[in-house]
């Protein structure tokens, strides 16, 4: 197995390569405006650092968000085209699941929230029982509006850090890391766990309004 994992749903443009037993290489760059520029060079770097060739890839795992649309689409389009051209499967993973997985929390430590920045004063969020078990979400809301449901819960991720007053405590990791995404995906593949289709979790409809009635050009 050689699994290529990447995620573009947060400011991190993050890539990792997993050989079935461990993460063998990775490349993470933080720049919320450059997913399109940085992702494919990152993939090439990860392959070169591991001394592996793209033709050896057996699987792709891609973060399907939720996340800001333009960057998110770069990841999903790249995954779909690579999967198509290499003839290998593309497994979608909720980005918040990978963030939660990276916390390594157990059920004994109690439930928690993973949250990323959704802009427009909102967060993308989900509630977890432990690092592998999502209980609620993903959703997109103002942090203050979900405070009742998540009150008293520790929170992880840059979205939580932005609205720290809405959560019991805030801790890292800040962004998702493809190494965690790769570990989670390999674990799911081995255990027969479920994946999502490579479709973006937009969670919002496009901001477009049907134009109002005809407005005369000439005054009455």
């Amino acid at each position, binding site marked *: 197995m050689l699994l290529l994992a990447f995620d573009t749903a947060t400011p991190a443009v993050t890539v990792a390569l997993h050989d079935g037993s461990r993460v063998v290489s990775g490349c993470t760059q933080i720049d919320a405006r450059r997913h399109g520029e940085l992702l494919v060079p990152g993939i090439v770097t990860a392959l070169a650092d591991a001394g592996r060739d793209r033709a050896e890839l057996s699987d792709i795992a891609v973060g399907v968000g939720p996340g800001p649309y333009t960057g998110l689409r770069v990841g999903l389009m790249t995954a779909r085209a690579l999967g198509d051209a*290499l003839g290998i499967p593309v497994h979608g993973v909720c980005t918040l699941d990978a963030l939660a997985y990276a916390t390594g929390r157990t059920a004994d430590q109690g439930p928690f929230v993973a949250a990323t920045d959704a802009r427009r004063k909102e967060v993308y969020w989900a509630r977890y029982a432990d690092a592998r078990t999502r209980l609620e979400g993903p959703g997109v809301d103002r942090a203050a509006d979900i405070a009742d449901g998540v009150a008293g819960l520790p929170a992880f991720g840059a979205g939580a850090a932005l609205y720290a007053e809405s959560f019991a405590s805030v801790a890292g990791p800040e962004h998702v890391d493809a190494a965690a995404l790769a570990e989670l995906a390999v674990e799911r593949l081995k255990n027969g766990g479920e994946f999502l289709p490579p479709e973006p979790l937009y969670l919002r409809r496009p901001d477009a309004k049907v134009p109002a009635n005809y407005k005369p050009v000439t005054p009455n």
Partner: protein
Amino acid sequence: MVLGIETSCDETGVGLVRDGVVLGQAVASSMDEHARFGGVVPEIAARAHLHSVTPVVRAALADAGLTLADVGAVAVTAGPGLATALQVGVAAAKAYAVALDVPLYGVHHLAGHVAAATLDGEPLPNPCVVLIVSGGHTSLLYVRDLATDPIEHLGDTVDDAAGECFDKAARVLGLPYPGGPNVDRAARGGDPAAVSFPRPMTGPRDDPFGFSFSGLKTAAARWAETERRAGREPVVADAAASLQEAIADVLTRKAVAACRARGVDTLVVVGGVAANSRVRALAEERCAAAGITLRVPPLRLCTDNGAMTAAVGDLLIRAGRPPASLDLTIDPSAPLVDALLQPRPVALPAAS
């Protein structure tokens, strides 16, 4: 063989070109999803591109009876166009280039429209005058070797593109989006002399090769509103025919004058508005009268498509132009000076 990917607006186009000949192509359009908004919504277009690119690649390959193993290079529209839509095509092109281990070329969308006129297998003469006219652009160009020489702008629109004028005038006449084909259809039974619309920028002191269509748009609205206020239902067929006549008249008059002024014997008319029946007919008539050879691509290659992008890639490769690096970015407002468009990342202040 070059695989071309075009996603600058609402069409997902993929084409396969080898040595100036189209081997296969396919197009998916999100136009129906935009119609109720009266124009293209970028986010809707980008969402549709993401779903369409790989199926359209497969459809183009099936059309050609070829496989991805036959692809020797990937060309992609890097601008101008809708930023969020361009990003999808560029991401796909990079992934195909890396997966197939072939070079990647970034191309200018408008150069693609020009190259569409070569896909009948006949290269463009050097030099030629090109009238490029679409929903977003209206320019008269002096083109030498499209793949290697700088493109000279003889004139551009100072405000709206001709296609924009069709779309907005269609709206005031109660015709559905997209305006171009619907005005064309409505005009069939109309009298082109019924409404005397102005011929903008044709005065003696006006830029001889410049265009302006914003006033014509307003003139159409004023006419329709005046008719309605006078209690008359506007005769849409007459207005459509008259408007189309005004646009076709200005475009072709200036294009022929540009050929004469530069001593060029070939006029090339490309872009979505080149699909308009009156623009085509009047261009033919006036070129014939002036002894100018007219080149217009077949209808299906006038609107956005992937074959035109592949055609530019094919020309660039044969001219020995360099491929793009994998950090290729997009330029949503790139002016047309070079068919090769390979913007590199610029230094931005670090994002938080």
